[in-house]
């Protein structure tokens, strides 16, 4: 490269170089900022190609000028170590900064400045180039509750509030009750949840009108499917993981067979089977609700994944833990419950969180059997003749919803990891 030595700072002249370099970097970024936000280009006198690359070139020169090891300035040192350690990285950094600057104004325009949320019809959106949040507003109840009758939405809300309240019962268990906390969450809570959902959301008794599960949908259905999926696939997966490591050949091979079978088939086929094939095996007068069949299919499917994650944790434990538990006279179950599983489960929290996030994000697949949770409702709304052409808004809305749910779950798993962390 030409003149590379002139651009190299030394510790004696570094101050001067730092001023000039920073000024050049600032100029480069400021130029892109002006072009992007205000559409002003002061460099039109330059030839086209040079005009385009000018900010990048002066930015690179600027970064080159401040690149000195142990400059004595902590900020500069940090920049040099992380993003300015060679010309390639410096270039990438500048390009990323420029692209961000270029993307922000149009995105901001579309999402907020030019967007509409007023009115109740498509006409409100015709005049503008921006996003049509009116569409989300009008369809909001459908996205949340599906085709569930509008008058009964309070039933879903009440059910969820009661369920959340019951979820917090564990925090208030003190003294002797504390011994039953696992029993409560593993067995009692799912039963309570089922009863509440059955009586409040499904209805049919206590003067509440019956609403068939076909009408359920939207985000509330996402929650119901994920909720039962999560709480049941975990214990089943745990048993399968133990089964696969069992010394009894029958149990071992049944577990292996189960896990390998369910891991080998795609979820979408499993859902199809549950709704199309499964009823054929039942006696003609027996009837299992479609939603229950679908949830059962998801549980059976995800349990295989959970099992393998937990098995990973079991295998990570040193053999000495088993020896110690056995030498104290513990039988198989006592050893597993008090010594092995608490340690193994702690190890696999990240893996379990992974599987659970995947489960939540797999719920939209239930559309193949005609159940429409939030993405399913989106599909329905976007093909509605009155509201054609607003798919983008819908997808962004769904993305934000799913992201918020999954991020919360991820944060919670990190909290658990920290809470149960012990030194080995």
């Amino acid at each position: 490269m030409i003149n590379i030595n002139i651009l190299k700072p030394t510790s004696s002249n570094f101050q001067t170089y730092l001023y000039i370099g920073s000024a050049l970097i600032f100029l480069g970024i400021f130029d892109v900022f002006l072009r992007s936000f205000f559409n002003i280009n002061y460099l039109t006198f330059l030839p086209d190609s040079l005009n385009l690359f000018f900010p990048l070139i002066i930015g690179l020169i600027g970064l080159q000028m401040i690149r000195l090891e142990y400059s004595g300035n902590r900020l500069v040192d940090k920049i040099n170590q992380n993003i300015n350690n060679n010309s390639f990285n410096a270039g990438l950094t500048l390009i990323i900064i420029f692209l961000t600057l270029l993307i922000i104004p149009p995105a901001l325009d579309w999402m907020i400045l030019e967007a509409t949320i007023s009115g109740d019809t498509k006409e409100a959106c015709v005049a503008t180039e921006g996003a049509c949040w009116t569409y989300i507003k009008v369809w909001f109840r459908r996205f949340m509750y599906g085709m569930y009758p509008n008058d009964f939405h309070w039933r879903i809300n009440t059910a969820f509030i009661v369920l959340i309240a019951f979820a917090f019962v564990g925090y208030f268990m003190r003294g002797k009750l504390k011994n039953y906390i696992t029993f409560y969450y593993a067995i009692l809570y799912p039963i309570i949840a089922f009863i509440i959902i059955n009586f409040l959301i499904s209805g049919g008794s206590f003067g509440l009108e019956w609403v068939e599960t076909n009408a359920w949908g939207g985000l509330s259905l996402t929650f119901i499917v994920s909720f039962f999926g999560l709480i049941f696939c975990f214990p089943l997966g745990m048993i399968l993981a133990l089964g696969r490591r069992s010394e009894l050949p029958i149990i071992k091979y049944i577990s292996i067979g189960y896990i390998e079978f369910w891991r080998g088939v795609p979820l979408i086929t499993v859902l199809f089977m549950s709704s199309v094939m499964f009823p054929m095996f039942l006696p003609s007068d027996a009837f299992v609700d479609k939603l229950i069949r679908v949830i059962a299919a998801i549980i059976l499917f995800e349990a295989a994944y959970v099992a393998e994650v937990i098995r990973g944790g079991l295998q990570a434990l040193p053999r000495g833990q088993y020896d110690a538990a056995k030498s104290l006279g513990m039988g198989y179950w006592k050893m597993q419950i008090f010594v092995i599983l608490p340690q193994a489960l702690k190890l696999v929290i990240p893996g379990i969180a992974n599987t659970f996030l995947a489960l939540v994000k797999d719920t939209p697949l239930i559309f193949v059997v005609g159940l429409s949770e939030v993405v399913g409702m989106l599909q329905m709304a976007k093909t509605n003749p009155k509201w054609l052409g607003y798919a983008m808004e819908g997808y962004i809305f769904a993305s934000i919803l799913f992201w918020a749910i999954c991020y919360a779950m991820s944060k919670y798993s990190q909290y658990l990891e920290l809470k149960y962390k012990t030194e080995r």
Partner: protein
Amino acid sequence: MSESIIQMKEVNKWFGDFQVLKDINLEVKEKQKIVVCGPSGSGKSTLIRCINRLEEHQKGQIIVDGNELSEKTKDIEKIRAEVGMVFQQFNLFPHLSILDNCTLAPIWVKKTPKKKAEEFAMKQLEQVQIADQASKFPGQLSGGQQQRAALARALCMEPKIMLFDEPTSALDPEMIKEVLDAMVNLAKAGMTMIVVTHEMGFAKEVADEVVFMDEGMIVERAKTNDFFANPKNERTKLFLSQIL
């Protein structure tokens, strides 16, 4: 001091094709202290792991406190509860505090009420002088403290026999003494002990008899004084000359 509490007759064991134990005959009487020594890979650990059936022997007979150990033994947990064991790597449960480590088995295996179990555990922890560490977790303790906690944990089951599998081999030299002291105290209290160790000082101090093993066989068994003063077997002599 008459009845044998442990009897091993013609015990053989293989790991695959490799024979680890060859025709082991060993009798241990109540309150006897036996030290097992020998070069590594000679089957010492496997021998004592067979006594509480952490390893299964394939041929021969092992009788512990009147119960024969075999595939048919139904209440193996009951026998194990009477045989305490201390491991080379301590094997404390890292997710439980020291006190919980000590009370877990008494509460769930022996069905001792929690309060009583905790009192007894504290007494045992005092014996090994780490009562002040009771609420800490194993990871926060030094190796010597962990090994003493492991000893207390085993004693909380009130075992009739104690097995030690190289209890000081994983410790720093300055911590070995505190563990050995705790073991000496236990020996003086009259516990039946089988100790696999290279600590010949400990053997001389407490052992009634020393067993020397090599290549899966018991090469020599003698009263402690005889063993060190005039070993009969050539192999024993060589071993002693190297280790002393």
